[in-house]
């Protein structure tokens, strides 16, 4: 049973560039959530996708956007990168958007913005 996978594992970009991160949910899951974890902090919710639509969004600017595909995989796009966007980006999957569902996390993509 494949767990949540993310690619790439590491990424280095320069300020002003754009980046795309990818996530494949755990088999059988249809909901994907993205989190940003700065060094020494807990993860912060970015947004959640279900049925190919953004269902909920955290306190992140419009530079952060996403997409969900018919096979439930998802992308996170960040435009006009800032130094402060350097972080570990975590993808989590679950079944449906019910609030008692456990979210399963992938290994993350570590983004460094120079």
């Amino acid at each position, binding site marked *: 049973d494949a767990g949540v996978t993310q690619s790439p594992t590491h990424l280095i970009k320069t300020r002003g560039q754009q980046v795309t991160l990818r996530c494949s949910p755990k088999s059988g899951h249809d909901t994907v959530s993205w989190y940003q974890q700065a060094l020494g902090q807990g993860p912060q919710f970015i947004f959640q996708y279900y049925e190919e639509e953004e269902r909920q969004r955290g306190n992140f600017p419009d530079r952060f956007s996403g997409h969900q595909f018919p096979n439930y995989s998802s992308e996170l796009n960040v435009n006009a990168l800032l130094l402060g966007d350097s972080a570990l980006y975590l993808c989590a999957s*679950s079944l449906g958007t019910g609030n008692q569902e456990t979210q399963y*996390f992938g*290994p993350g993509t570590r983004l460094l913005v120079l």
Partner: protein
Amino acid sequence: SQQGEEDPQALSIQEGENATMNCSYKTSINNLQWYRQNSGRGLVHLILIRSNEREKHSGRLRVTLDTSKKSSSLLITASRAADTASYFCATNIAGYSTLTFGKGTMLLVSP
């Protein structure tokens, strides 16, 4: 913003000892979950406790929830060096399926 606040920020113990971590939160919740993270990698789900539950066990883990005090504790019994990691509490708030995390407790278990 952080909903949960773990205490202590860091904990150092010897193998075989018990480790207790606490979490306080601010608003009413549907459930509270504990996660483990090794060396800045992905989060591993440990246990979920619902707002109408007071205590839950899973192997060497024991979680309590006191909704009147808006607090939870995670007890790891007979700790092992492999338990060395950061531990996060995450709350699920009514009306939302997403999680709000605290800053975590770093646990170091020495052989």
